[in-house]
């Protein structure tokens, strides 16, 4: 089982769209896939037509033993299940602070699912907190969607710095450019000449595309309703790149 987290401190950078589309592509490959919608806004749950509600809320999930499995719902796609969001996740930090070894808690919760799933995607909320630290510890890969703008790059630098300070494995971090609008000069400039503090990143990037926005209308991954669109092809390339990193290393 591989745990892939999609994370950024910033909101609105395409985290949920990436988590939804990449998990969908993993399931199309036949991999048993779970996406955990950790964001209390519940966008990923919404995209999959699943109510953002967990019985007993985040508290019960974190404290319990088998609650995780019971809360999982199958999506419209074979091999793809979802652990829905819950509004109580907004207090995840407080919930985690009440248990022993909060940073290792997520890992312990996911462990029993190792037999059931080949991939677990974590759609993380935008913040930096003990909940995020729990994600940093559990994930095998931390994908950071980054808009090619000055502020976004600055945020990426902050994440890197935090990882180093807290002695997390920075090798897990894989940034990629998201919402790239090649009509904008700054986007072109940054994508074509990535900054030196970004020596390792995914070659594939995700464009700013209306199809991705339409995911909310269709309530489906972009590959389902616009398989031949540029956006769908870009996610596909990204998934192929991720697989080659995971399996050919």
């Amino acid at each position, binding site marked *: 089982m591989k745990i892939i987290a999609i994370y950024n401190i910033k909101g609105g950078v395409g985290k949920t769209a990436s988590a939804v589309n990449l998990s969908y592509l993993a399931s*199309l*490959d*036949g*991999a*048993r896939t779970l996406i955990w919608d950790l964001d209390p806004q519940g966008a990923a749950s919404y995209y999959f*037509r*699943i109510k953002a509600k967990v019985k007993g809320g985040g508290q019960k999930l974190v404290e319990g033993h088998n609650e995780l499995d019971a809360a*999982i*719902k*199958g*999506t*419209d796609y*074979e091999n793809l*299940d979802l652990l829905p969001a819950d509004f109580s996740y907004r207090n995840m930090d407080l919930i985690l602070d009440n248990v022993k070894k909060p940073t290792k808690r997520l890992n312990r919760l996911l462990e029993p699912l190792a037999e059931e799933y*080949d991939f677990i995607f974590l759609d993380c909320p935008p913040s930096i907190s003990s909940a995020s630290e729990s994600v940093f510890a559990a994930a095998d890969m931390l994908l950071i969607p980054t808009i090619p703008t000055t502020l976004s790059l600055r945020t990426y630098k902050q994440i890197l710095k935090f990882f180093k300070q807290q002695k997390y494995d920075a090798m897990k971090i894989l940034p990629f450019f998201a919402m790239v609008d090649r009509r904008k000069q700054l986007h072109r400039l940054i994508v074509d000449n990535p900054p030196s503090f970004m020596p390792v990143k995914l070659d594939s990037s995700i464009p700013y595309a209306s199809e991705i926005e339409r995911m909310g209308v269709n309530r489906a991954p972009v590959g389902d309703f616009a398989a031949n669109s540029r956006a769908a092809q870009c996610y596909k390339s990204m998934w192929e790149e991720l*697989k080659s990193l*995971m*399996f*050919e290393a």
Partner: protein
Amino acid sequence: MANNQLDFVFPDKQGFAELIHSLRHGFSIRQSPAAVYYRTFYDTVDWLLRTAGSALELHDDGQSQKLYWRANKDAPLRIQLGLKQVPQLAKQLPAGEFRQQLASVISVRELNPRIQIKVKRIPLAVLNKNEKVVVRINLDENWFYPVKTRAGMLLGKRICVKAVKGYDEAFDQVEAFFHEMDLRPSQDNMMKLALAESKSSTIEYSTKLKLLLDPEMPAEEALKAILLRLLEIMEQNTAGAIKGTDIEFMHDYRVSIRKTRSALTLIKRVFPKKTVKKYSKFFSGLGKLTNPVRDMDVFLLKLESYAEKLGKSKQEQLQPLRQYLQDNRDKAQQAYVDTVTSAEYRQVLKGWRDYLESTDPIEPPQKNSRKPVSQLANELIWSTYQVALKEGNAITDETEAEALHELRKTCKKLRYLMEFFQSLYPAKKILELINALKGLQDNLGDFNDYHVHMDILKGFNEAGTDEAAIKVSTKMISRLDKKQHATRNSFAERFRAFSSQENQNEFRELFVVSNDG
């Protein structure tokens, strides 16, 4: 909800349209376009995966390929991600659980597509009021396509109802619908059904002699039957031996050659001398030709386990040795391929088959031609057993290694004779004696293998130029020498067990007919 999947048999002669119509009455159904995919089952020539309850299955829908693996009959079928193609050999896989599990079942054997099933699927989804999928129903038509043929046959229609996690109530409702239809639950698997169909049209691969001899049969008929079966085994393994990927084909091919030569020379005075001379020379030539191929195959295989004990840094220094072994193997393999693909080879084998298939009695009959086979079998096994005892008893700690090689050859002859004539004796008793002999043969075989491997290494040292590799090779020689000594030291004990009074009595009881003497 007890299960998360239900399978039903749907009558072959009925179409699915009516069923879909009834489903629409009770549920909100979404029907996706019908799709076709192929399931190809891979296995070795001797069905090692199937026998072990494992399965390696490739699903191809024309757009993507998915490889599934089941480690044993109780394990689930699991997708293998990150593989670009189906491996031919276990060693081609990256190190990991899958490789380890596969190797433990198929060892060095090659995988090939064995059975192909075409599935025509109508995917249905049951939706809830929010148009969310809550149950999946697949309506499948399974067609069997023997590999490399176009004509298919319908194996059966099946309905598979799959639960969607978290929507148990909907699944229960669909389950009740199907129970009301009074459909038979399906437990059979399509691979089994397809295999049953394929068996009727293909010859089963086997390297077992599987002979049933009549004790009163004239020796000439029995010998022809034995040799004909050996020829079949040899021919079954020729294509694989020429290809050279799966080294067991060459091994089985060589065993049948050796047995043929032994049958010809040991079962004396049955065929005319001229025939024996001609064909034993031919088969002996084939044996010599393929010796280096087999020696290198075995050594390349053993090299890794020898090397493991040498430490990591030395293992890398073994590359020139590996290359040397591979080059020698390739050279010997090419010489073999040139021979077996020649017109002369085909001609001799055709003559051999014609001779064995001829039902004309041998004229003039040789001394043993018309003798009942059971009598000749008794005489041959008993006398060869006596030789083995005599040679073994003469071996002391000081005896030259050559004597052990001679005994190894005699034991091999004895083993072959016992196997040729196995069906003439009570199954349990002869098997016990064969097993007693096996214990001794293993010891003598190991002793010989160490000898051959040391010779190969010495050859490498003489020809080699890579100093580091020669140093490692020399170290390996000294290790092998020690192992050979240890094997030699355990010989006496093994021989004592084989030549025990109890075994001697059993041999006498089985192969010496009391009213003979």
